[in-house]
């Protein structure tokens, strides 16, 4: 009985640890067709875990990745779009640099930088002409914060793109060129295994919208 209790506590602790592992949250997402493009406003919370804060404060960059999916109702995915916001703390001038959407903003403090990151306004996502009038659309969004390099968030996808090309091991030996497919990685990829070791937000969905 005592052993059973211990096992229950252990699993409870695991659940608590999983629940308290800080991942970003999408508070709201609003998509609005404007004059020439589809414009999105996003509000986030809890974007910086202590590990990310430490990385930024040490002077190395962090990337906030916005993964958008345009859906046509009822649930047909039309397009995937990714936008990245790069953050860098300049230790020498004590300023935070935010590069997003081909624009750079400077923040004087961490709090100011966090405020700029949590509220993204009027992000032009795609040309309005791509949307068909009278059809109803929705936008899904997942946000991930990755320290140092965005590559740390897409290891399985990268691996599939960059196959394990092989060449002969030494010149002079009989020439051989080919590929090696790691089946464990392939099954992980097909199984939709979580790729980002730093966690990502849950998928958030915008209210339905139409082009008039």
């Amino acid at each position: 009985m005592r052993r059973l209790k211990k096992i229950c506590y252990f699993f409870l602790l695991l659940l608590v640890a999983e629940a308290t592992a800080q991942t970003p949250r999408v508070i709201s997402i609003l998509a609005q067709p404007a004059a020439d493009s589809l414009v999105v406003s996003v509000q986030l919370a809890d974007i910086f875990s202590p590990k990310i804060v430490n990385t930024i404060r040490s002077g190395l960059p962090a990337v906030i990745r916005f993964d958008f999916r345009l859906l046509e109702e009822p649930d047909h995915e039309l397009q995937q779009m990714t936008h990245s916001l790069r953050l860098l703390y300049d230790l020498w001038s004590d300023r935070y640099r935010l590069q997003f959407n081909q624009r750079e903003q400077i923040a004087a403090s961490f709090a100011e930088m966090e405020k700029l990151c949590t509220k993204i306004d009027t992000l032009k996502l795609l040309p309005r002409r791509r949307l068909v009038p009278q059809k109803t659309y929705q936008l899904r969004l997942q946000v991930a914060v990755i320290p140092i390099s965005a590559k740390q968030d897409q290891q399985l996808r990268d691996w599939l793109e960059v196959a394990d090309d092989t060449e002969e091991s030494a010149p002079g030996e009989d020439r051989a060129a080919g590929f090696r497919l790691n089946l464990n990685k392939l099954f992980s990829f097909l199984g939709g295994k979580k790729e980002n070791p730093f966690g990502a937000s849950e998928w958030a969905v915008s209210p339905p919208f139409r082009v008039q």
Partner: protein
Amino acid sequence: MQAFLRKNLVHLLVSITILAAQPTRAQAQEGQLIVEQLKILGLRKTSSQVVQGYLSFREGDILTPELIERNYQTLQATNFFKQVSFRSEPGSGRGKVIVVCEVIERQWPTFEFAGGYSELDGWYFSPLGVRLDNLLGTGHWLGLRIIFGDRVAGANLRFYQPNIFNSTANFQFDADITGRQIIHYFDARASRQNIAAAGLRLALSGSRGLGKYLSGGLQFGETQPDSFATFVNRKDTLYTFPEIIAKELGKKRLSSVWLRLQADTRDNALFPTKGIWGALSVEAIGGDTKFNRTVFDGRVYQKLGIGVLAWRLKLAKTSEATPFYERFYLGGVNSLRSFDERRLTPVGYSTKLSLSNLEYRIPLEWDKQGKPRFVGVLFFDAGRINGLKEIIGDDTVKSLGFGVRVKVPVLGLLRMDFAYPEKHPDDFHFYLTLGHLF
């Protein structure tokens, strides 16, 4: 006076010794980040030295995001870990950084499917290979795979241990059992002869210093060619070989010692734009037959205009006593294009070979990683082999051609070449294979 000198001399020597013993630490200059400490977390069986051996930075080095990204990819490629991540923490002063590398070790074997094209064996597939890399946490590679192909069937066991006994030397052991078919041309008709072989190969190489340029090893093997060859059209079988082949039909045990001098200064292994890759290998073989073999293979890459000029020169020589299956051949997709596989090889193969391939590679489209995804190629091949005059009436054979290389997910680089012999430009050959020629 003497006492004063002695006292100060001792003081000076002690000061020099202390200064020499102090590690030289770079100070962070404005705009620079310096690695103050490296923390490796998550290791359960793997020695931290194994991870450090793969990392290209040390404490005191200048740190950039690109450096971290390269090291992240290197650790990922080892296949020792299910997950690798890098983050950082502020160090003791401005610009000093604590780099944290966190890994989750792989506990189970990995399985792989492999394939490709080999100059020796043609198309091959390994439907299932099992890898037990880093099983003991020492950073070794251990793999077993079964191979089937156009002209080959067999199994290979490979063990590779980098940094043996914490040195910069690497040890490799290979055991093979294969049945392969070698191609002969008799009266311009292609035939195939089976050769059964089993062998062991031990190799020692290095990753730094002299060992980076020098490797060597031992090889032991037993070979048994079939006493007949089947013509490719399968209508008839040849039982009476010319003397040069007939005398080598018995079972032979051969052992060899080999030494290789090598250099690699390429900027990228899969699409080099500058640098050289080359080796001179010398082999002394004993056992049932005694012979020597020397092979030089040099490749030069240089940016030129919008593309890259790539040149390969292969020179090879072996003793007259060498059995035909240990000699050289010419012709084919990885040799001299515009001729069928080994079509330019005399009966009984040859003891001397020279081959030169010149390519101008023009990248036409790039992928997300900045690597060429679509490459156009113009090429010129020239080759000589003993006995070539009896086959084509000339000492040297040349061919020209063009091709494309397309990067394909999983398969890697797909190569398509159109090659024309210099003397008969209407007789073009088309090849579809994997990887660059060199």
